[in-house]
Each structure stands twice: as C-alpha cells, then as structure tokens.
C-alpha cells in the first residue's frame, strides 16, 4: 500500500504513547545528566493522560494528533508542553481534510510541525535541542517525497535520520534552554528533547509501517 487511511490513527498514536511509557526512565536519566531529570516523567504523564482520554475509541490520525497536542499543551506546561503541543497540532492541521495520508502529505505535515516549532523557539540545527532530531527527519522525508520513494522505505530513512540527528547532539554545546547555561559542560551528553523526539518519530514510523504492510 502507498498510503495510510487517516481513520486508522489509533494504532499509530498508541505506538507513540507506548514508546514514551517504555522510555520514561531512560528519558529521565538522559535529562538528569544536564537537566533536572523530570523529562521522562512529564512526557509519560502527558502521553498517558492522552491514552486515558482516548480509552477504547477509534480516532483519525489528524484528530488524535490534535487531542494529544492539546493534552500536552494544557496539562504538561514546562517547555515540552508548548513545544510538542505545537508540533502535533501543526501536523493535525496539515492533514485535517485528508482521507489518505500519502508520503507527500506526511512530508508536508512534518514540515508544518517544524515551521510551527520555529515560530515559538529560537533554536535551529546545531543548538543541541530537539530541532537536531526533527530537522534531518523532515529533510529526509522531503527528499523521499520528491524522488517518489516507497513510503515504508521513506519512513525507515526518516527514523534513521532522526536517530543520527539525535546522536549528533552528543557533541554539541547547548545554546538554548536550561542546559545552555552549562556551556562547554553540556558537551558529551545527549539532549533530552532530541532523545524524546527520536523515540516519538521512530514509534510513529513503526506504527505507520505496520499499517502500510497490512
């Protein structure tokens, strides 16, 4: 199959929820090295609240992303509430009217997420934030969409690009957020936001690939 039905959003969203739940401790530990250690806890709280809200209901991918974004924005606060809230709500807006999620549309959704994020934060690639995961993932998807790649392959490439981007934050010096005050001392450690973004994108890709292979 070359597209996913928007109405089959539940599995993809639950894949994201479960990935965050499984990585709660890991994200907290990564954050604890140069942040205050609550990233895993906060993300787990937000995603689990969404899971409870969804209950047994089906959802379109667009509506699910909107609801998840709203929960994060309204219930989590911190920096991650507005950041992930914006990302998911922008993805939702960009796909609201579609019945089928194709590769070009998914690339557009991800591009909208990045643009929305740029509207609320000043960080850009190289600043040791989640932008370092999201940006290469978006670039990879755009390239795949333009060259007409297979959707599954494009998602696998996106996940690999996100992973590589996340790993690249290890050698960076933080310029934004709480860890930026560490200067050189932030080098040698992964950025927690880049790490959670990678967990989410990989889970999203996994959930989508499962639909495409069905």
């Amino acid at each position: 199959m070359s597209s996913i039905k928007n109405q089959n959003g539940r599995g993809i969203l639950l894949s994201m929820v479960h990935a965050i739940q499984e990585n709660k401790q890991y994200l907290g530990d990564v954050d604890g090295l140069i942040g205050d250690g609550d990233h895993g806890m906060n993300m787990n709280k937000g995603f689990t609240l969404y899971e409870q809200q969804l209950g047994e209901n089906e959802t379109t991918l667009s509506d699910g992303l909107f609801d998840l974004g709203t929960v994060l924005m309204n219930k989590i606060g911190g920096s991650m509430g507005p950041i992930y809230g914006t990302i998911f709500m922008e993805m939702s807006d960009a796909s609201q009217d579609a019945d089928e999620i194709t590769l070009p549309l998914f690339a557009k959704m991800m591009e909208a997420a990045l643009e929305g994020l740029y509207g609320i934060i000043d960080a850009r690639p190289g600043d040791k934030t989640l932008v370092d995961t999201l940006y290469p993932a978006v670039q990879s998807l755009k390239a795949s969409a333009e060259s007409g790649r297979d959707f599954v392959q494009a998602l696998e490439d996106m996940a690999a690009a996100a992973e590589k981007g996340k790993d690249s934050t290890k050698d960076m010096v933080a310029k934004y957020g709480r860890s930026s005050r560490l200067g050189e001392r932030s080098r040698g450690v992964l950025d927690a936001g880049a790490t959670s973004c990678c967990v989410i994108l990989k889970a999203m890709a996994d959930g989508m690939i499962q639909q495409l292979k069905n």
Partner: protein
Amino acid sequence: MQRILNNPDNIVDEMLEGFVKCHSDIVKLVKTNDDNPRGVVAAKEAPIAGKVGIVSGGGSGHKPAFVGYVGRNMCDAVAVGEIFSSPTATAFLDAFRAANGGKGVACLYGNYSGDNMNVKMAIKMAKREGIEVKTVVANDDVCSAPKDQREKRRGVAGEIFMWKCGAAKAAKGGNLDEVIEAAQKAIDSTRSVGIGLTPCTLPAVGHPNFEIKEGTMEVGIGHHGEPGVEVCPIENAENMAKRMVDLVVNDYPFTSGDEVAVLVSGLGATPVMELYVLYNEIEKLLVAQGIKVYRSYVGNYFTSLEMMGATLSVMKLDDELKELLDMEAYSMGFKQQL
C-alpha cells in the same frame, strides 16, 4: 528519601490544598477552567476593580515562591506549575483572568525558557478576551550569564523585590505602564547570587540529579541546581559572604553611598540560624564599603526543595523604590507593616 509524601505525583495539588486551607485569610483557589483543573491561587479580594492586576507564576518547589507572594498589595494571582516546571499557558491565562480588574495585567516572572513560551501563548489568548498584559522578565542572577548577556540571566530571589515594588505601584493607583516601569526598575536595580551546599531531589524522581560532593560548595548555583561558576572546598561564613558580596557588588556595581535592600534566603534545608550568621558577615562587608542597608530580610524566601545553601539579593534604592518597598503588604511569604 526521607520525605513527607503521599503519591509523589500529586504533591503539587496536595500542597496547594493545604496552603489554601491554612491561609484562607489571604488567598483563595480559583478554578474556572476545565483545561486547568489545578486552578490558580488568587488574593482573597482579587480582582480589584480599577487596579492593575499583578500576576506571576512558575514551577513548584520554591516555597514560599510563588503562592506565598499572593496577598494584599502583593501579587493578585499566580499560576502554579509542576515541580521545577513552568505552568501551562492555560494556567497563566487563568491567573490573568483572576487578577484582571479592568486596568490591564502586569505579568512579572523569571527568565526561564518554559515560562517564556507559556506566558507568550497566554498573552495571545488573553488578547482575544480583551485583557491587556505586559511583562517584566526577571534576570537578577549574576552567575547565570555574563554581564553583556544580561537578557540570558535567570530570575531568582530578586523577583521578590520586583513583585513588592510592582505591586505597591499598582496599589498606589499606577497605570499599567507605570507599574511595568517600577517593576522593571526594581529588577534592573537588583543583583543576586547563590551558593549551594547539597543537591536536591524531585520527589517523583527519588534521587538527586546533580552532585555537590561532601566538603565542597558550588558558587553561583541556580534555583534548580543549574551549575554555578566555581566548585570549591566549603568555606566559613565570613568567606562565603565575601564571595557573594564581591560577585553582587562588582556586577551592578554598588558603590559607597548607595542605599540598598538586602535579602538573604535559604535554599530550603539550611537552618535559619545559619542564615543570620551569613547575614551578619554580609552586612559587615557592605557597611565597610560604605553601602547603607536600608531594609533587610532573612529567611526562607525562595527555596529549591531541600537544597542546602543560600542566596543573596541586593537592590539599590532611590526615593521611589524606598517608598514602594515601605508600603504595607500582607502575604504569607512577605509581610510589611507601616
């Protein structure tokens, strides 16, 4: 972890319930919005018609900040976040609503990325409801960025002076611009520094997420354990005071003949008697430099959970700031009698 807790995930809401029950003569919990089930803490009389509303907010774990500075001639409402984490935009919006007496709202808060984002979003939402909001972003912590990048510095205990002066200006009938100007002047005239002696533990995490080795101290530490400028063997109170006074006085710089307000706050677990030992040394050093202490405050004003250590905040005064600081005020964390 030796703590007084039920479920650590509920600590903020349970703390709020207790706080509002205990201080029902000063504050109330306002819940108006399903998207912010926690509600906001507002002064008993808020909103006061015809007065500029004073709002703040921030993460929990800094008691008495922020809820302790809600009261008469202090903040009208504050938004309450999780421990060390910004309140949501909806929570800030609720605080604006609770404080709005029709003359606009001054949102006086500290320079942290989460707070900046959520306040920015809340201001957009408030605008749609016709509530005008202006901000002052506190940046008094001298060790958090170099002097030529003051806009990057964090807000710490000096925020109390900002709230006190901004709120007094509003209580005296100042319009929104005048209130903002007074609060900005207060924080621009203030410099703070912290020394940490032990780390702190988020109850739901269960272990400290940074380290201060036994026998050492961290100079310039932030309110969430953000690293300072130097880790060195622990010193006596006289030398700690000297380091703190040097950092603060040289940064502003305060000079002979200046009149100042001094605030020494514990970081949570340092006995108050030790804070007076520190204050005694600080006062001697200031006086020796010809700096006159007009008002002084010692206690747990702005803490970091159970961290040991202290912060020093010094505000240079002029006639206007003196008058604003002197005004009567009544909140849990700050009481000023005429």
